[in-house]
């Protein structure tokens, strides 16, 4: 097990270097001249050149890359021009908001999609199966910002159940003392029940919005994998021994069907982080997605670089984590390595 961990970590290093290079090259490929942008519309050519040299954008690409790599290793990701803050602190303060949202969205998706998948696998061709297909297809084919706007329209605008989509808390609430950065957890840790409720109200719609998008792959994968398992020999044997159907279904079949679902979850989690960008925009969520979107629009090099780098690292570690979980769930994977 330990050996496996080491080898997985080692395999992640080239990917991390690749991420570093791509983050750098991609941002240089962005259109626009940051020096001219910063100098403002009335600046003279000399003023622009002056800013260019203060930003060290007049150096060669290779030299810029060396500087950049050195700074990254020193934990310095530069300063964002759109918010005026250091990129690192910007990412650190915004990342928990995005991750909390993504995790909650994913939990919602799992809570709905796995039972749905199991139900439609046990009753293939029934109305439940068709209903499930309809729901998941709709979820994945409606553009995410559209579902978001629809949710806002119905639950905020028409019914007034949800609070104004203005971020993580209402205007008069103070953020709980930061431990994890997840407001739901932090408020509970601090015993601030009212803040917890408030955070929950605010995160509910965006999380459901994200979750709807993730229903389809999870439900389809659960169904397919469950169908396969249900027709396998060991289930037939269990049935022949007249074990209670619940025990067969949840005890044996589901456990065995989970493996491909876990792989799917990893994939879904990563594309949810991407889908965050739009959900954050609709719900004014102060996460990394909205930060990155703004940064791309104005060619905010440092911010885009920092975002790509952080996301890249995050994905690499996510994959690592899934590999490890896989080994825990399925002994065969452990033995093979």
């Amino acid at each position, binding site marked *: 097990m330990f050996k496996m961990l080491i080898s997985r970590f080692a395999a992640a290093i080239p990917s991390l270097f690749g991420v570093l290079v791509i983050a750098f090259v991609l941002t240089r490929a962005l*259109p*626009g*001249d*940051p020096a*001219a*942008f*910063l*100098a*403002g*519309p*009335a*600046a003279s050519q000399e*003023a622009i050149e*002056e800013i260019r040299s203060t930003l060290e954008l007049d150096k060669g690409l290779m030299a810029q890359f060396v500087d950049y790599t050195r700074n990254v290793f020193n934990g310095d990701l530069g300063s964002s*021009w*759109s*918010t*005026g*803050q250091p990129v690192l602190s910007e990412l650190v303060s915004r990342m928990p908001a995005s991750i909390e949202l993504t995790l909650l969205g994913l*939990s919602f998706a*799992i*809570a709905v999609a*796995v*039972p749905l998948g199991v139900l439609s696998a046990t009753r293939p061709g029934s109305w439940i199966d068709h209903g499930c297909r309809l729901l998941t297809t709709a979820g994945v084919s409606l553009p995410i910002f559209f579902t978001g*706007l629809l949710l*806002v*329209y119905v639950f*905020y*605008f028409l019914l*007034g*159940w*949800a*609070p*104004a*989509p*203005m*971020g993580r808390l*209402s*205007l*008069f609430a103070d953020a709980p003392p930061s431990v994890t950065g997840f407001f739901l957890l932090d408020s509970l840790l601090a015993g601030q029940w009212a803040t917890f*409720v408030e955070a*929950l*109200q605010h995160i*509910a719609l965006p999380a459901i919005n994200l979750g709807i998008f993730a229903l389809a792959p999870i439900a389809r994968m659960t169904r397919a994998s469950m169908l396969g398992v249900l027709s396998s020999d060991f289930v037939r044997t269990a049935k022949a021994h007249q074990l209670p159907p*619940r025990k067969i279904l*949840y*005890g*044996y079949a589901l*456990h065995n069907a989970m493996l491909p679902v876990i792989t799917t979850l990893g994939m879904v989690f990563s594309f949810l982080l991407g889908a965050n960008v739009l959900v954050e*925009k*609709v*719900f*004014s969520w*102060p996460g990394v997605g*909205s930060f990155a*979107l*703004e940064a791309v*629009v*104005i*060619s905010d090099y440092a911010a885009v670089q920092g975002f790509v780098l952080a996301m890249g690292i995050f994905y690499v570690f996510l994959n690592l984590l899934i590999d490890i979980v896989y080994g825990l769930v399925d002994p065969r994977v452990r033995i093979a390595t």
Partner: protein
Amino acid sequence: MNITKHYFQRLARGWVALAFVAALLGSLNASAGRNETLIVVREQGANSLDIQGLGTNRPAYGTSWNVYDRLLSFGVKTAANGDLSYDYQSLKPELAASWRVSEDGKYIDFMLRKDAVFHDGSSVTAADVQWSFARALAVGGFPTFQMKAGSIESAEQFEVVDKHTFRLHLLRDDKLTLPDLAVPVAAIYNASLAKQHATDADPWALEWLKTNDAGSGAYQVEKFEPGVQVVLSRFDAWRSGPLPKMEKVVERVVPSSSTRRAMSERGDVDVSFDLPPKDFAQLIDNPKVKVQGIPVENFMWFLDMNVNMPPFDKLKVRQAIAAAIPYQAIFDSVSYGRAAKLFGGEQAQPTSIDWPQAYPYNTDLKKAKALLTEAGYPDGFKTSLYYNLGLATWSEPIALQVQQNLRQIGIELTLEKIPGANWRGEMGKKSMPFLINDMGGWLNYPDYFFFWNYHSQNGVFNTMSYQNPEMDAYIDAARFAPDQASYIENVKGFIGKAFADVPRIPLFQSNLDVATRLDIQGYQYWFHRQLDYRQLYRK
């Protein structure tokens, strides 16, 4: 192995409970302090608290305006449509209780208010004024440029006469000098506080002031989270004017315009600022929302033709195009009528010095075709129309309609979209034959606008590369006109020249629109196109 089953049951129960709690408590949002708090939503938030800093964005002008004071400010007037507007013709005291121009016209003395204090409690002195102005000149870029627009060019012009008297030595008689001290850039900083945070590498404390408040304004910064929110609280020791009524201002960034509109319609926010015209046009029918707006002063959307690039060097070609633009359709579908028309003028020569004013051009495709034939292009020609993708909500529909109409007289346009960050660079190159742009000047003088746009100094805004000695003569004469009669004559002169030569085709002068709740009063238009919270109150 009942764990999985339990797990699902627990999860399902959890979600039902969550939904229930959320629904139950959703309506309990009105908390204490709501009446004394002004809630503002806007698309983009301030990126800095320091207007003199590098790369400070437009929303930050507004924050600075409320957090810092200036020596002078402007009075109020009622605009043509009944809304309140600042009055550029009346200067009033802010930090300077009074001022006096010396008899020889060589300097101006500003007598500072003796009771004015900064947010840390120290009093505002002439030394602070000197330091702040010297800083505006030293940091370069936009602040320096703006100071120079009022003939404030060197730190040697500043003198501390005594603790409460500041003297500004004048380089020349410039009517823009005093108004220029009432623009956001001329903010007065707490010099001793800022100096404590200055370093050898950063002598003007640019880094520290980006996120810290060193002002004496009516509001102080309580929370500053760039890209999320700015929270301001009233500074009760403020003496530069009547104490504002709102105790707290929360300015939240809500990037999605649909979300902003929904919040306005539900009455959850007091002010929604800078909504797109389409949303404003629809909100106007909502009885629960008040929409106000007046055309942005000294501002226009226009089409520019580069007179150095054939066939736009031919006057007849330019006139043909000016006759082929679907003005009314653009006005209706792009500005949704939330603008003033800059086309269809009755007279071929200007009858007033109002600016911007309607140019004498109308849509007349027959005439356009005839002019094009006379110019030697009976079959039309091909060229490219450039526009800024950063302002695509405006420029894209304009481009499409212009393209469609010009096709009818044989001119084929290729649309070239330039990313927002590139636009400034493209303007500087002067290589675009035909383009859509907008432009506005803070100081509301037509000669100021013409100096930046039509003068042969060929500044960056002169994207038509227009150079004409006759035009220059009018502009220069108007800028330093000795009396009103000659001013009027010269202003009419350069406007008339712009009518006749038509290197630029104005389209419309769009509104600065703001949507407020019905109980919010006192909204006032400002030249910097940001909100002044000092005048807003709840009825």
